[in-house]
């Protein structure tokens, strides 16, 4: 054993200066320029870009639990932009571009790994839909193409090409598809934001929103009242509940989504594979575990409980795709709360309350949009409520004018 190590072992003090990624909690001030409710990926990303690009750092992120402990920790970490509408593809492509650079930007490894995403078509209708998605994607600079069964066999030799008697007819091969460590994304943004003066207050729950003459002036928390210039709500899974405190309704229904992970095995699956017809997506993590996700639960509920029937139906389909997985053991399961909008697109922008900005309706597509959503929200907050072009189509008002952005067919596992 090296002597230096022995010396450290016997030393009363830790020999190196302790390096904290996040500063210690501070006193909650009575006023901030911007209050961000929700310390998940979206909230901290918004704070980060506000401080970095707009010089606004008198910002408090109020998180009722702990950093990235909500849906940021519960998603299946898929990054992709192969959506259907031009509005959607433009938005998610920007996110993919930002994700690629995040590790360098943070000087912190978010374990971004671009392996491509393969979606399977089992019907002629799905093939037609894929053809359209591939063209829309190419048009906006994405790398997506329609591939035939032979190419699918070469990409994923272990795949059963006739799962549940529904032969695989074609695949949508999205080369930009990737995965990243979801927690690290939140940590990286939080680190960058707090270094620039933003305050992250964990265990600080917003109990009420103070609205005076149609304008938000502050929030009540379990640690006292805070007045503010504006509020950003970024509380995926609880959007309707917080909006009710601010005094308005949202076009959202909240469903649980269950996911699970197996014991680790040797690497065999490079791309992320999903089958909308079988309501199932599968990916192998860097540690070798297989992550399974499916559609949201069949009826609305605010509970992250587990059900045997969903496990059974999801895994039956997963085993159809990869029959040899039948003997593998599940290691963990969990659920998140998904705020589903009727058009399967998010809600970003203004609300009926002045200076109260919405970042909601993130259903099952929240993680993949973390960077671009944070950047766009920051731009909007900094300009005093001027909605950036990129997110204009996603205003809550689109439901009142019947201009939905339909992405239902582009979810990885139809819900």
């Amino acid at each position, binding site marked *: 054993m090296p002597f230096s190590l022995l010396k450290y072992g016997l030393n009363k003090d830790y020999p190196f200066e302790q390096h904290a990624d996040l500063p210690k909690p501070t006193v909650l001030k009575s006023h901030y320029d911007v209050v961000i409710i929700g310390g998940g990926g979206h909230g901290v990303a918004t704070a980060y870009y506000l401080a970095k690009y707009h010089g606004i750092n008198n910002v408090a992120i109020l998180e009722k639990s702990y950093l990235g402990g909500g849906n940021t920790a519960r998603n299946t970490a898929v990054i992709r932009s192969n959506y259907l509408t031009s509005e959607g593809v433009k938005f998610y492509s920007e996110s993919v571009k930002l994700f690629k650079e995040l590790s360098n930007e943070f000087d912190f490894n978010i374990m971004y790994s671009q392996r491509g995403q393969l979606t399977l078509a089992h019907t002629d209708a799905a093939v037609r839909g894929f053809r359209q998605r591939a063209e829309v994607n190419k048009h906006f600079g994405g790398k997506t193409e329609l591939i035939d069964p032979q190419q699918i066999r070469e990409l994923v030799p272990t795949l059963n090409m006739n799962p549940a008697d529904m032969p695989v007819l074609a695949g949508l091969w999205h080369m930009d598809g990737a995965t990243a460590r979801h927690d690290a994304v939140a940590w990286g943004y939080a680190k960058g934001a707090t270094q620039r003066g933003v305050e992250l207050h964990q265990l600080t729950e917003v109990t009420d929103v103070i609205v005076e003459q149609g304008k938000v002036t502050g929030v009540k928390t379990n640690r006292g009242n805070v007045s503010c210039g504006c509020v950003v709500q970024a509380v995926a899974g609880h959007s309707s*509940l917080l909006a009710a405190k601010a005094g308005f309704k949202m076009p*959202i229904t909240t469903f649980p989504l269950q996911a699970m992970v197996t014991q680790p095995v040797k690497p065999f699956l490079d791309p992320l594979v999903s089958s909308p017809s079988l309501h199932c997506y599968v990916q192998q993590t860097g540690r070798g575990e297989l992550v399974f996700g499916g559609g949201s639960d069949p009826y609305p509920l605010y509970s992250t409980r587990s*059900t045997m029937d969903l496990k059974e139906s999801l895994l039956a389909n997963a085993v159809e795709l990869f029959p040899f997985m039948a003997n593998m053991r599940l290691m963990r399961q969990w659920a998140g709360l998904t705020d589903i909008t*009727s058009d399967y697109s998010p809600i970003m922008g203004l609300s009926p309350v002045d200076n109260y900005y919405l970042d909601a309706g993130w259903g099952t597509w929240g993680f993949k949009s973390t960077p671009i959503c944070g950047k766009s929200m920051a731009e909007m907050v900094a300009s005093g409520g001027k909605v950036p072009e990129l997110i204009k189509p996603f205003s809550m008002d689109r*439901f009142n004018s*019947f201009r939905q952005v339909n992405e239902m067919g582009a979810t990885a596992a139809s819900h």
Partner: protein
Amino acid sequence: MKMMNCPLNGLRNISEFVHGGEVKEMPDPNSCSDKEWADYVFFSDNAISVVTEWWLHAPSGYWFIAERHTGSDEILKTYDPSVLFSERVEFSAPATEVKA
């Protein structure tokens, strides 16, 4: 599996049922504003509370009403729609409203 008490068929597996959304009062589609209609079809309280909902027992095609807590998933009551609705709702627009 979770069970639900169908007013017509008795206790059945939850997988036989389809959720049909909250029971809300429908504005008159022929006279309400776009805003009122959007509010009816898209917006909801989506609260954690006991909610009165439409449910369908799919195998028998029977629609009924359930009172369920959206936090605990406890189903408190199920009953036939005739308890709340005394007359049948007709969805077809009057013939005079149809434009070529």
